[in-house]
């Protein structure tokens, strides 16, 4: 292993409106190493990777590749510099075969007399696949492969591309590849990575610290958009890494903790979940939320928390189990059933699932309560405006007028619009799916305040947040999930909040 850097970033900064995603980061990848990159959600890992593959341009800082100062203006130029990424969700075209995907848009070498030579393609494909140790038929249609096999094909494509561009030591980025893999497949992946390492460098992103410690050559920790430190995995302890990832202190100032009430056990139970189960996603789970309580579901991708919410909102039908709101048992076969019975849901994908973008703020706020804004059977403009104005003022939505298209608002104000929509209808339970994603700092704090107010007004909230810190700061109680099972329930009363460090080992 050489200590020379193949990719070197110095002082790289990237800001998004209201957020510093990367702050003067120095980072390097050495020749022939497997680099483990760890950090919490929002630590800046994915921004960094997107800069490396040319999807984002840094606001400041330099990128040197093999000693050369380089600008990566798009994925294509990153590819020409031998940097490629295997995405979590996969980026192969499902209806094409393996060899078509392998050589997509680079078929020049396989043409004779202007025609593609399938024989040449097939034998080349077999050769390329053999390099990553897989031997399946290159004519297989990709969508019939397992996620693990698809990953192998993608890795093979990246390696082949770099040999095409005559890059001696390509850099492969693997973004949480093991979340979609079975245990044996994971083992196999690491075996292959060890071989690939002989002529390439690998950046390996994972939340599973055990595999990082066991399989990488160097560990780099990120926190809050900053490079924290690097560690030697042979000496590093998992607990030590956890500590570095989450930081020691918990800043609770902007979570409005002072307004969090004491846990009251005499409040009635609003949401009761009993033995809810979705086959293959999560094991039977039971919990309840009291009036005015904020409960947080915590877990990694694949822990089943997203699916639990989908079952509660009627988006997905649970295999078995009972859900009751205020003692009344529900039949949840569509989101309509959930809404009618007082379960509201603020989705993560704000623009695609939360707003009618080309309709006005007023229309968006009033969606759920239109039937109450009627007089003698007809919807009244005056009542509509009154309701919209009330919520715009109440939630401090910054908009030129209530007739502005919601598409023209900032992310934070869009989110406030969605929250207002649910509040104006009298839901009893509100599920908040990453309520502050893509929202700037100021608006974040306002949204936290709003959540607090909702709880004190008697609404029951189920939240899933971007960072552990947020979960701890906001919730009264925390349910930690891992691989579809509840591993721990933690109380978070205002005066004795647990620190992320207390929880992290339960989560990962």
């Amino acid at each position, binding site marked *: 292993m050489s200590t020379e850097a193949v990719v070197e970033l110095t002082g790289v900064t990237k800001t998004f409106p209201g957020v510093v995603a990367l702050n003067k980061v120095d980072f390097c990848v050495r020749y022939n190493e497997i680099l483990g990159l760890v950090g919490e959600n929002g630590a800046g890992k994915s921004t960094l990777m997107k800069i490396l593959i040319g999807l984002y341009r840094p606001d400041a800082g330099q990128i040197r590749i093999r000693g050369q100062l380089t600008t990566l203006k798009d994925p294509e130029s990153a590819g020409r510099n031998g940097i490629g990424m295997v995405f979590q969700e996969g980026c192969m075209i499902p209806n*094409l075969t393996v060899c078509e995907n392998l050589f997509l848009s680079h078929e020049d070498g396989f043409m004779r007399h*202007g025609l593609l030579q399938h024989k040449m393609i097939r034998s080349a494909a077999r050769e390329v696949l053999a390099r990553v140790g897989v031997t399946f038929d290159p004519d297989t249609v990709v969508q019939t492969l397992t996620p693990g096999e698809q990953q192998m094909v993608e890795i093979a494509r990246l390696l082949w591309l770099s040999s095409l561009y005559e890059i001696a030591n390509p850099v492969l980025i693997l973004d949480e590849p093991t979340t979609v893999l079975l245990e044996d497949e994971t083992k196999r992946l690491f075996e292959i990575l060890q071989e690939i390492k002989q002529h390439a460098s690998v950046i390996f992103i994972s939340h599973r610290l055990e595999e990082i410690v066991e399989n990488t050559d160097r560990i780099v920790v990120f926190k809050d958009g900053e490079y924290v430190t690097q560690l030697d995995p042979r000496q590093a302890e998992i607990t030590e890494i956890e500590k570095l990832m989450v930081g020691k202190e918990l800043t609770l100032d902007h979570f409005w903790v002072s307004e969090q009430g004491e846990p009251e056990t005499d409040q009635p139970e609003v949401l009761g979940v009993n033995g809810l189960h979705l086959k293959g996603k999560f094991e039977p789970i039971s919990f309840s939320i009291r009036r005015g309580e904020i409960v947080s579901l915590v877990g990694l991708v694949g822990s089943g928390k997203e699916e639990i919410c989908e079952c509660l909102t009627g988006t997905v039908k649970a295999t078995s189990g009972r859900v009751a709101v205020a003692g009344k048992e529900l039949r949840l076969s569509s989101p309509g059933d959930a809404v009618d019975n007082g379960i509201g849901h603020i989705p993560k994908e704000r623009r695609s699932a939360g707003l009618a973008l080309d309709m006005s703020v007023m229309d968006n706020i009033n969606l759920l309560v239109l039937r109450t804004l009627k007089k003698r059977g007809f919807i009244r403009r005056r009542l509509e405006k009154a309701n919209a104005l009330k919520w715009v003022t109440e939630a401090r939505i910054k908009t030129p007028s209530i007739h502005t298209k919601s598409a023209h608002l900032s992310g934070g104000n869009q989110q406030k619009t969605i929250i207002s929509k649910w509040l104006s209808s009298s839901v009893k339970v509100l599920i908040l799916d990453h309520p502050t994603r893509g929202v700037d700092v100021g608006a974040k704090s306002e949204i936290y305040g709003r959540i607090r107010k909702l709880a004190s007004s008697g609404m029951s909230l189920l939240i899933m947040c971007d960072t552990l810190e947020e979960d701890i700061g906001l919730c009264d109680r925390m349910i930690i999930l891992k691989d579809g099972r509840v591993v721990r329930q933690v109380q978070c009363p205002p005066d004795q909040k647990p620190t992320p460090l207390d929880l992290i080992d339960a989560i990962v």
Partner: protein
Amino acid sequence: MQNPGSSTQSESTQSPVTLREPQSRGSVPLSLGRIYQVIGRSGVRGQILSLLIIVLLFALGTGGRYLAVGNIRTIIALASIPAIIAIGVHQVVVLGGLDLSVEGVIAICAVSVGLLTRNSMTQADIGLWIIPVVMIIGGCAGLVNGVLHTKLRIPSLMTTLGINWVFFGLAILISRGQSIRILDPRFQAVVSSRVWGFPTVALFALGVLAIVMLFQSRTRYGRYLYAVGGDELLAKQGGVKTDRVKILVFVMAGVIYGIAALLLVARLNSSAARIGDNLLFPAMTAVAVGGVALTGGIGGAKNALFGALIVSALNNGLVMMRVNPYTQYAVNGIVLICAVALTIDRKKLGFIK
């Protein structure tokens, strides 16, 4: 599954078998199983099966008259031009788009044929040069479609709808709304002739089929067509110039419509802007029945051809059974809806609009 290695190995033990097959094709004696295997891999198994069922039903219904050589010839001849049009349309559908400009482009091509060959209206006579000329005119019409669709980012449905009127209006304008008689006898002679008892027009259809199949399987852009149809964003990320692929497909469609227009004019020995009327509906039906998924990415030229054959066999059978000919539209409609209902990939579409 105990080990991914073992799973891939089990596949690799199978794969040599499938790989060796093409080489040993000649030595394997022709058997039903063998035929079934070939059909199974061709991607038109369902279509062949439904065609056989239709033929069987009508053969029984008409007491065998349906299977008379003359009638089979009629079906094939009738299916030929719709098949050519469907081959043009289906590539746009594979992209995930739609082409409603079929009738307009055919109108302008047909009128051009009428006015440029020896005819009852003008002095012009460019003879056989009309063949490349009409293909170029169709190609240009397709180019307009493709460029407007990709560069202005207007959905293909709207682009082609508007373009349909534009070309239809132009066609009527330059033909002054009249029907033009063709005075060059060669065209009709070729189209109505037979080669070894096989309608010549069907050979044209097979020719177009062969070229498009070659394009789809053996050229880069042919494969990109499927990449774009499968997932346009990923194809773009993978380095495919998606706009170019789309424009090319629209141009090809236009060229093919040009050929179809020429054949239509030759068959009637006269040309009018209205010649293209009611061609879109059967073409769309053929494409859907042939198993080309409206969601894009699935189905080739063969599918379009078989679709046209099925539609034509069905219509001809109904005529032979003395069903009121006006039910044809209804039958096509029902077949279209059912075919799409069976082939559409609802997961890919998410919410259906």
